[in-house]
């Protein structure tokens, strides 16, 4: 029994590290990501049947690829693929040539960079919903199972399975080509990819209370995807900006929750717990983004803000005027009430509550912030600093009634109670 489960875990591990290049390589041949994924899955099933008997082969990646390619040839011969006949012959010859390569294992890496890049762009194609893009990306590039993705996004497994099936069908129906976008298309398609990677990261990062290991692991998956992308398109500053943002945010993971799992706000965190290796990597990535002329990109700007916190050894040393200026630049680039609210906080820290209050008041009628608990929470904070404790308490209590997070509600009510005493 123990040996069987050990083999199973070893096969899972092989799958995790092999599946992306397997699917990417197959997609180049069959030119259909859905079919490529099916072929790879069939090869995995074959491995699960065979390897417990035979042991894991010396070159498991090459074994999986050879198995999948033989099935690809079967598919082509049966004419089940949509492409024209002469195309199929040419492809069959190509598969044959690759199968007979002297070193199949080395041949796996021949096109790996281009193949992975194409796979990322197809999985994150704008014809798919954001949720579908995220699920497909984790499945195709992260090697995650449907069950793991479901646990990560806290949705039923069937929901994820349907998303993936529908996404693959959409890609086939719309005849989305397996290629890297060129020219003007590139910018829009790249931002779609970056959005998906950051979404995956945030799903992991915001799950401070999750007991499930899958959610924090999502941060690592997102970081890995970001680093892969940074190597494949090294001249795109926003890719480095996103990597910088994720590395610096991830550096604070250990400091973000207290002993009993309660969230610890940035300024209250024990900075000795910040991971300095990740900070340095993040700052280096930010430098690359800026050196490429991308200092004004939305991700680079957010990374620069995160970097201001990372560089401050204590909360008091934080360069708030610079953070306020960066938020202003960000607000001009991507106007958003939430960015504006963050700018107000920074202005308050840099230039005092009286300077910040008008900025917050200007957001009061903003429809998208109705019901957003941080608006009254920030306003209450500023009012308290101005000594207007009664108004501060009322705002804080309103914030408490709006938040859906029990821990945060306790925190806000405790603060409101403190101001009640301060007022008396």
């Amino acid at each position: 029994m123990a040996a069987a489960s050990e083999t199973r875990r070893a096969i899972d591990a092989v799958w995790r590290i092999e599946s992306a290049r397997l699917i990417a390589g197959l997609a180049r041949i069959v030119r259909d990501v859905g079919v490529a994924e099916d072929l790879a899955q069939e090869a995995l099933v074959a491995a699960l049947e065979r390897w417990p008997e035979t042991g894991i082969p010396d070159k498991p990646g090459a074994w999986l690829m050879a198995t999948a390619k033989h099935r690809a040839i079967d598919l082509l011969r049966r004419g089940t693929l949509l492409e024209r006949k002469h195309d199929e012959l040419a492809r069959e010859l190509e598969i044959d040539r690759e199968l007979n390569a002297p070193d199949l294992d080395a041949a796996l890496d021949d096109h790996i960079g281009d193949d992975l890049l194409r796979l990322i762009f197809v999985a994150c194609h704008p014809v798919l919903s954001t949720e579908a893009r995220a699920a497909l990306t984790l499945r195709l590039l992260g090697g995650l199972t449907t069950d793991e993705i479901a646990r990560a996004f806290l949705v039923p497994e069937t929901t994820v399975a349907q998303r993936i099936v529908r996404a693959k069908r959409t890609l086939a129906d719309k005849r989305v080509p397996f290629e890297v976008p060129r020219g003007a298309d590139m910018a829009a398609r790249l931002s779609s990819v970056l959005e998906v990677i950051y979404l995956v990261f945030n799903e992991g990062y915001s799950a401070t209370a999750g007991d499930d290991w899958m959610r924090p692991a999502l941060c690592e998956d997102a970081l890995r995807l970001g680093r892969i992308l940074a190597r494949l398109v090294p001249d795109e500053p926003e890719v480095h900006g996103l990597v910088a943002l994720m590395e610096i945010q991830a550096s604070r993971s250990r400091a973000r929750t207290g002993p009993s799992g309660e969230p610890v706000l940035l300024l209250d965190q024990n900075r000795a717990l910040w991971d300095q290796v990740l900070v340095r990597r993040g700052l280096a990535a930010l430098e690359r983004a800026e050196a490429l002329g991308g200092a004004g990109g939305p991700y680079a700007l957010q990374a620069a803000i995160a970097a201001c916190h990372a560089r401050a050894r204590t909360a008091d040393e934080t360069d708030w005027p610079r953070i306020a200026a960066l938020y202003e630049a960000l607000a001009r680039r991507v106007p958003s009430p939430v960015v504006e609210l963050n700018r107000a906080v920074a202005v308050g820290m840099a230039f005092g509550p009286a300077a910040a209050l008008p900025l917050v008041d200007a957001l009061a009628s903003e429809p998208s912030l109705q019901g957003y608990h941080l608006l009254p929470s920030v306003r209450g904070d500023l009012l308290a600093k101005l000594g207007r404790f009664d108004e501060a308490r009322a705002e804080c209590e309103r914030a408490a009634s709006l938040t859906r997070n029990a821990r945060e509600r306790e925190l806000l009510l405790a603060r409101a109670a403190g101001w009640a005493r301060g007022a008396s």
Partner: protein
Amino acid sequence: MPFMLLVMEKGEERRARTAPEGEAAYARMLAFADGLTKRGLLKACDSLRSDAEGVRVAARGGKRTVVDGPFTESKEIVGGFFLLDCRTMEEAIAIAHECPATEWAEVEVREIGRCWEGNG
């Protein structure tokens, strides 16, 4: 969770290797590293020159010692390293299996972590 692959070579075998043999092995290791990099699995790697050119430095009881290589008392030398970026020990082992050096050396798989064993 980072893991380290240490390529453990027999010192005398390393010293007996001819230049063409060494270059061929090195080329395969470079291709292996390149593939890992593109797949996002590698943080850093390098190969090390022979222990014959190495030096061991120690300080005990206020006394410094410097011993020149080769270090005959140890049969194995660290020939190179790969700092991996993968999720589990099983994945690190699967990557180690792909390493061409498994054909002429032993590849030791170690997790990055604290350097003491006791608790508390």
